[in-house]
């Protein structure tokens, strides 16, 4: 059964179309990553799934059901703009959110999660005394108590230090192992590549990419070369069949023009510099993102317009 099925959903705010005729199916037990530039419609889509916004047109079904009011009981939602009652203690706050969602006492779950995320000794402290990272962990716990069937996380790693981010990442993966379906939005392409079973890219309210990472990459083929050569960026200038160079510092990423021969590029490169590594690969998600929404794409869109 699909956890979420969105069919031709549109949502407008005044004259702005935030989500335009979006259709999407999220399989149960998967991790679905939403990517896209700011203002592209990711948060609006998530808010519609959570029932905070109603679609102007189209339909959203959760676990095969229409949209009964009780559907939000199945969802744990972590909004992008997070806020907690600062004057409450951590324990009281988490019990409040847990009871609000489940209608029962969640003391045991609160204790388990506080222990798991290293906050057990802060249970009786007021939220206002916590660091930003700790507050984010508390907010995450508030989202997953009691364990939801569907977890919707809007930018769950933003502002977290690597240790806290790793703790949250491992918690998300464990929840998925328990059968929880996860939808998360992120601007970190590495997170999307490494964590998500499926990736949706929304751009200007519309779906531009949807599928597994490899299926998305297959659409572009092996048109990327990753090179390390003496001379760095200077060594890869003016190569035949290369339309764009991305300088990563120690490594350079070259995008081939359509139909270009990688062997020709290698020959030209060896002729002008000492090459220590050369690999032909599919484009990274970051590269695909930039091709769709980067400045070059913007210029191209303007030119067409």
């Amino acid at each position, binding site marked *: 059964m699909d956890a979420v099925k969105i069919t031709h959903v549109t949502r407008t705010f005044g004259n702005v179309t935030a989500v335009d005729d979006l259709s999407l199916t999220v399989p149960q037990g998967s991790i679905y990553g939403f990517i896209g530039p700011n203002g592209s419609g990711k948060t609006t889509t998530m808010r519609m799934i959570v029932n905070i916004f109603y679609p102007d047109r189209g339909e959203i079904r959760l676990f095969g059901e229409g949209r009964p*009011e009780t559907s*939000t009981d199945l969802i*744990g*939602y972590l909004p992008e703009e997070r*806020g907690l009652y600062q004057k409450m203690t951590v324990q009281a706050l988490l019990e409040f959110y847990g009871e609000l969602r489940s*209608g029962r006492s969640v003391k045991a779950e609160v204790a388990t999660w506080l222990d798991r995320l290293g906050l057990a000794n802060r249970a009786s402290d007021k939220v206002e005394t916590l660091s930003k990272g700790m507050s984010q962990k508390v907010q995450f716990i508030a989202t997953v108590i009691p364990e939801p069937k569907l977890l919707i996380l809007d930018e769950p790693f933003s502002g977290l230090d690597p240790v806290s981010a790793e703790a949250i990442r491992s918690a998300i993966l464990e929840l998925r192992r328990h059968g929880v379906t996860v939808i998360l939005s992120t601007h970190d392409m590495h997170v999307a590549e490494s964590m998500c079973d499926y990736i949706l890219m929304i751009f200007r309210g519309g779906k531009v990419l949807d599928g597994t990472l490899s299926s998305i990459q297959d659409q572009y083929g092996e048109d990327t070369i990753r090179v390390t050569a003496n001379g760095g960026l200077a060594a890869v200038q003016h190569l035949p069949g290369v339309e764009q160079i991305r300088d990563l510092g120690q490594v350079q990423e070259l995008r081939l023009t359509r139909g270009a021969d990688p062997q020709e590029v290698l020959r030209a490169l060896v002729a002008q510099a000492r090459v220590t590594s050369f690999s032909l690969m599919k484009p990274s998600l970051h590269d695909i993102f930039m091709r769709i929404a980067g400045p070059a794409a913007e210029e191209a869109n303007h030119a067409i317009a």
Partner: protein
Amino acid sequence: MRLHKVVTIAKRDYITTVRTKAFVFGLVVAPVLFGGGSIAMSFLKGKPDLKDRHVAVIDHTGVVANALVSAVREKNDRELFDKKTHQQIAPRYVFEVVAPAANAEGHRAQLLALSDRVRSKELVAFLEIGKDALRPPKPSDDSDDLDLGTSKKTDPDTGVSYYTNAGGIDEIRIWLNGPIGDGARLARLAQLGIDINHNKGLVSSPRVDGMSLVERDEKTGEVHEAHKRSELEGFFVPFALAMILAMIVMVGSAPMLQSVTQDKSQRIVETLLGAASPFELMTGKVLGSVGVSVTSSVLYVIAGTVAVNALGVAGLLPLTIIPWFYVYLLTDVIMLCAFAAALGACCSTPQDAQNLAIVLLMPCIIPMFTLVTVLRQPNGVLATVMSLIPPFTPILMLLRQAMPNGVPAWQPWVGLFDVLVFAAGTVWAASRIFRVAILMQGKPPRLAEAVRWAMKG
């Protein structure tokens, strides 16, 4: 609507509010003001200021002052000492007769000198009896209208002017009406050659006592006699009840505006909306405020009961009004809290909320402007119409119901029906505005936009 979500939100808001210092301070201060103030009044009533009170009299008639001095002597003899304990229980009034000045310039200087003596607290007041004060008044001079500070000027020659800088209720001025009237009548009769000094009681005015109506008990047929009605019964109890209601409603609903704005500006609201619908969230918050209001009202009612007992006017409080008090309290708090939630949802910053606070309090403030008119004519057209306009019904209908003559039996029920319909409509419209506005940032919407949200959702 999922009840457990509403109750959880209400419980949190209620506990958070009643634990704040502001709430506890308000709870302590209000009963102290009502109950403690009344007890203090009652205590001070038994310990009056016993210092002599000097009043100067300029008498242009040459005869009224003597009658006044004689009357004040009798008053002192009558009221100065307790008849059983022989202890002084009232201040002594000492009237000093001052000869009128010879000319206009001297008169002005005399008034200024006496005013300076009042300012220096040597005198509590002085009065000037006009030279034609004994002349029988023309019909057009007579007016029993309540003077509310109109600019109508008394003719100094025919009237009596009382000069003082004392504020509030001036007992001596009220008392003076009697002996001055008696003195004037005696003097007029003397001018006609009729001497009744041997029996001054002949000119004294009989006392007019306010009475209730004689009633027949509908069940037993027994006729209940009329009872004497005090001014307090007609004014104090209804006024106090209306003021207490207005205060509890304002204290209960104003924090709602801040609470919603705070939840919104601190980004808490979206997390809550992930677990509860906007309607559940708003209803929970309204219910929490109702709980806060009921808590404070119970304490205010206890303090009020202490106050009326301390003042010895407990019998004046019509007990049948208490259920109405709570019905109006609950409907008014629900109505205003829903309104506050919608306003709070439209605000992005605490500053926006402060600017809109006055709009929220209008249903309590507007009835205050009509209180004097309603108290004077509780069944007049204005009082009736205003008390049937739903936002004003709770305060004004309660005020009218608590007055001795009450209101026609149908009016509270029609008023209540209007209030219930209006409160339901307010909650419905507020929840639609709340849902649309709660996640919006930026400038608060214009009225037309808010109305559109309420209509279309």
